[in-house]
C-alpha cells in the first residue's frame, strides 16, 4: 500500500513537471517584425507616427503601463500615486532599482526623479535647454500639466491647471515615456533621436535607415524575467504583398498591418496564425449642423436609416470589423451596450425626409477621405456605396474630395455638408473620443475636432464632469448617459469599427494585440527553441 502511494505520488510529480514545462515560456531567440514604413525619430516626446511609437514601445517605459490586451493600466516605473483633493496635484512614487540602458562608454545608471522631471519639463518649458522638436502631442493631450518637480529621488509631483481623470492613462502613453537625462545631455537631442536610451526591455543597437532597426535584450531590465527574446529586428517592407510572401517564406516572423483581403491567406496557412482584435477606432460621416438641412434632426435621422452598415462592413471590411452603434468602439470601457442602432429602413428614411419638408429629397455633397485608414480601408468605394443608398431615399449627394491636408483644414473650418472622417484612440479613455470629437469645446471653426459642429450643453456638462471625477464607475455612468444623448441627436452616421490584424509565424507566442499599445515585444516568446 505504501509502495503504491509512493509510486502514485512520483507519477503525479512527473506529470506536474512535464505539465509546467509544456507551458513554460522559453528564453531566447530573435524575432523579425516587418512593418510598412520606417520610424522617423526615436525621441518619444517628439513623435506622431505609429512606426516610431512601435520601436519606442520597446526601448522605453512609462510610469504606468497598459495591461495585456486591454486599456487598463498597472504600475510600471511608478509603484503608486496620490491625487490631491482638488485633483490639481498628482504625486508618483517611483520604483527603485530601475536602470537605464548603457550607451557609448557610459554605464547603466539608476532612474530617479530627475529623469522623470527632465522628460516632462523639456516638453512644457519652452526655455528648457533640451526643448528641441515639435512636441505635437504635448499641446494636444498634456497641456494641462504645468509643472513637474522632484520631491525626493523617488517621488515626483505634477501640478495640473485643471483636474484630469484621464491623466493616468495619458501618462501611460508614448509621449510620457521616460528618457535618460544623462544620455540626452551627453549626446544632444539630435543624436538621441537616432540613438535612444531608455529603461525598456530592449536596448537600441543600430538603425539602417529605410531598412531595419535592431534591438537587443537588456539584461538589467527591472521587470524580470522579461523579456524572453534575445533581440527584435524591426524591418521595413513597404509593399504588403511582399510582406505577406516574406511571412509565408519564414523570412520574417511578424507581419504588421494585415488588410482584410490578405487575412484569409494567413488563416489558411498552417504555419501562420492570424491575430485579430477590435481596433480602438471609429469611422463616421459627420453631418455639419452649420449647413442646412443637417441642422434638422429629422434629416439626420433619415440619413441614419438610409444606410445599411452591415453591408458596408461585409463588403469593404470583409467582415473584419463591426457596424458602429456609438461614437466610440465597443471594446472601450464605458461603451453603452443598451443603445439600439438605427435600423436600415429606406421607407422610414423617406418618411423622415418628408416630415422634414423634403418629400422629393435634396441635393448635397458627401466628402470622402483621399487616404485610407484602418477605419475606412477603401474610402472612395465606401462613399460610393453610401451615395447610392442615400440616392435611393432621395438624397442626391455629389462626391467631393481634396488632398489630405486640405481635407483636414476644410473640414475643421466647417466647409462641408457631410464628410467622412474617423479617429484612432490615443489613450483608451472615452474622453479621447466623446470630448475630442463631439463636445462643444471642440467645435471651434477653423480648428474643430467636432466637425459635425454639434452643440449640446448637457453633453458638455457630462464630459466635463467625467474629466474631473476619478471614480471609474461614476465615469462609466456619465459616458453611458453621454452616448444616449448623442444617439438621440444623431450628429453622425457612425459607420464602423475596424479590427486590427497581425500575422505571425505559429511559433510566436503572446504577442499583445493591445488596442492602445502597438508593437510591444516585452512578453513575446518563441516555442520552437
Amino acid at each position, binding site marked *: 500500500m505504501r509502495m503504491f502511494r509512493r509510486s502514485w505520488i512520483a507519477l503525479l510529480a512527473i506529470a506536474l513537471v512535464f505539465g509546467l514545462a509544456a507551458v513554460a515560456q522559453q528564453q531566447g531567440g530573435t524575432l*523579425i517584425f516587418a512593418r510598412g514604413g520606417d520610424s522617423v525619430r526615436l525621441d518619444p516626446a517628439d513623435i506622431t507616427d505609429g512606426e516610431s511609437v512601435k520601436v519606442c514601445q520597446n526601448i522605453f517605459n512609462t510610469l504606468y503601463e497598459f495591461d495585456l490586451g486591454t486599456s487598463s493600466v498597472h504600475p510600471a516605473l511608478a509603484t503608486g500615486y496620490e491625487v490631491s483633493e482638488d485633483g490639481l496635484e498628482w504625486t508618483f512614487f517611483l520604483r527603485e532599482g530601475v536602470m537605464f540602458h548603457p550607451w557609448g562608454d557610459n554605464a547603466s545608471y539608476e532612474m530617479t526623479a530627475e529623469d522623470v522631471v527632465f522628460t516632462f519639463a523639456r516638453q512644457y518649458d519652452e526655455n528648457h535647454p533640451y526643448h528641441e522638436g515639435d512636441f505635437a502631442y504635448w499641446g494636444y493631450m498634456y497641456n494641462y500639466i504645468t509643472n513637474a518637480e522632484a520631491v525626493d529621488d523617488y517621488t515626483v509631483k505634477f501640478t495640473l491647471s485643471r483636474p484630469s481623470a484621464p491623466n493616468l492613462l495619458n501618462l501611460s502613453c508614448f509621449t510620457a515615456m521616460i528618457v535618460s537625462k544623462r544620455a540626452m545631455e551627453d549626446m544632444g537631442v539630435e543624436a538621441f533621436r537616432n540613438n535612444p536610451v531608455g529603461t525598456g526591455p530592449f536596448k537600441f543597437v543600430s538603425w539602417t535607415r529605410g531598412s531595419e532597426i535592431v534591438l537587443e535584450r537588456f539584461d538589467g531590465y527591472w521587470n524580470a524575467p522579461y523579456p524572453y527574446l534575445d533581440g527584435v529586428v524591426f524591418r521595413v517592407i513597404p509593399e504588403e504583398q511582399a510582406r505577406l510572401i516574406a511571412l509565408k*517564406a519564414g523570412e520574417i516572423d511578424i507581419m504588421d498591418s494585415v488588410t482584410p483581403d490578405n487575412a484569409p491567406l494567413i488563416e489558411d496557412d498552417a504555419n501562420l496564425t492570424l491575430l485579430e482584435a477590435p481596433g480602438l477606432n471609429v469611422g463616421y460621416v459627420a453631418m455639419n449642423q452649420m449647413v442646412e438641412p443637417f441642422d434638422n434632426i429629422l434629416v439626420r435621422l433619415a440619413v441614419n436609416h438610409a444606410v445599411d452598415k452591415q453591408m458596408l462592413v461585409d463588403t469593404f471590411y470583409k467582415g473584419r470589423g463591426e457596424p458602429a452603434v456609438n461614437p466610440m468602439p465597443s471594446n472601450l470601457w464605458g461603451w453603452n451596450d443598451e443603445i439600439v442602432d438605427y435600423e436600415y429602413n429606406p421607407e422610414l428614411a423617406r418618411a423622415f425626409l418628408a416630415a422634414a419638408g423634403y418629400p422629393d429629397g435634396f441635393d448635397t455633397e458627401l466628402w470622402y477621405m483621399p487616404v485610407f485608414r484602418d477605419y475606412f480601408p477603401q474610402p472612395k468605394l465606401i462613399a460610393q456605396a453610401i451615395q447610392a443608398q442615400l440616392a435611393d431615399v432621395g438624397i442626391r449627394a455629389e462626391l467631393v474630395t481634396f488632398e489630405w*491636408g486640405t481635407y483636414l483644414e476644410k473640414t475643421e473650418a466647417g466647409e462641408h455638408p457631410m464628410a467622412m472622417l474617423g479617429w484612432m484612440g490615443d489613450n483608451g479613455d472615452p474622453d479621447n473620443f466623446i470630448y475630442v470629437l463631439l463636445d462643444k469645446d471642440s467645435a471651434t471653426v477653423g480648428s474643430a475636432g467636432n466637425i459635425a459642429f454639434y452643440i449640446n450643453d448637457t453633453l458638455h456638462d457630462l464630459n466635463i464632469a467625467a474629466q474631473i471625477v476619478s471614480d471609474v464607475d461614476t465615469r462609466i455612468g456619465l459616458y453611458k448617459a453621454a452616448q444616449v444623448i448623442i444617439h438621440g441627436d444623431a450628429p453622425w452616421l457612425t459607420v464602423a469599427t475596424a479590427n486590427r490584424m497581425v500575422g505571425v509565424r505559429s511559433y510566436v507566442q503572446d504577442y499583445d494585440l493591445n488596442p492602445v499599445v502597438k508593437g510591444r515585444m516585452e512578453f513575446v516568446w518563441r516555442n520552437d527553441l
Partner: protein
Amino acid sequence: MLKYTIRRLIAIIPVLLGLLVLISLLIEFIPGDPARVMLGQHVSEEALEILRERMGLNRPFIVRFGIYLGNLFRGDWGTSIREGRPILTILAERIPATFELSLAAMIVSSVVGIAIGILSAYRQYSVLDYTGMFIALVGISMPVFWLGLMMIYVFSLVVPILPFGGRLTTGVALNSVTGFYVLDAIVTGNGPALGDVLKHLVMPAIALGTIPMAIITRMTRSSMLEVLRQDYINTARAKGLASRVVVLRHAFKNALIPVVTVVGLNFGVLLGGAILTETVFAWPGLGTWLLDSIYARDYPAVQGGVLFIGAAFILINLLVDLSYAWINPKVKYD
C-alpha cells in the same frame, strides 16, 4: 577637350538653379498645409503654428528661397523637417543603395540588350530576330511592379532560392564603409557578405532592368542595321574577314554611339530613384525617401533630393558626350 569639359561643368550651375526654382515653385503650389500634413490629426493648433514658423511658412516664398540658396552656396543643404537630420547625411545613406541597384540594372540590361540587339540585327527577319523583338516588347510592356511581385513569389516562396527583398539578410555582418555593399564586401574580404549582397541584387536588378533592356535592344538593333548596310562593311566582308570580326569589331563600334546615349540616359533616369522597384523589394534607396518626403511636404528634403538627381543626370549626360570622342576618334571637342 578639357576646355569643353570645364565649359560644360560651369553650365551646370544655371541649369541646376533653374531646376531648383521650378521644383521649389511646384511644391509651393501643392495644396494643403505642410505642417498639418506632417503632424496629422492628433495635434494642437499651437504645435502647428510652431512648425509653420520652423518651416518658414509665414515668410514669403522668395525670402525662403533666398535663404535656402544662400545656405546652399555655403554647403548647407538644410535639415529634414520630418527626420530632424541634415539632408546631406540622409543623401549619403540613400545614394549608394540607389546607385548600386541602378548600376546592377544597367549592367544586366546593357549586356542582355546589346547581345539580343546584335543578334537580331545580324539575323534580321529570322526566328532569332522575332524572338529578340518579342522579348523587347514584353520587357517594355511588363509593369515593373507586377514583375517584381511575381519574381518574389516564385523565387522566394515557391522555389526559395533568393531573398524577398532588402539589401542584406538580418544578422549577416558587413562593415559598411562606403555604403556600396558590393564594394564594401570586396574591400573587407567578406565572402559570405558578398554572396548575400549579390543574391539580394539579382531580382531587383532584373526587374528594374527590363525596360532599359528593351530600349537598348531596339536601339542596338536599329543602329546595327544601319551600320551593316554601309559600304565599308561590304568591303570588309569582301576582303574575307570573318563575320564575327565584321560585326563585333567594325560594325558594333560604329553603332555604339546611339547605344551609349540610350544607356547613359537610362542610367540617369534610374538614378532618379526607381520608386516602384524600391517599394516592392524593400530597397532603402533615394526613390522611396523622396516620395515619402513629397507626401510629408518636407521641402528641404525634396529640394535636396531633386538637386542631387538633377546634378547626377547632367553629369552623366556630360560623360556620355565625352565618351563619343573615345568611341569615334573623328569627334573632337574644343
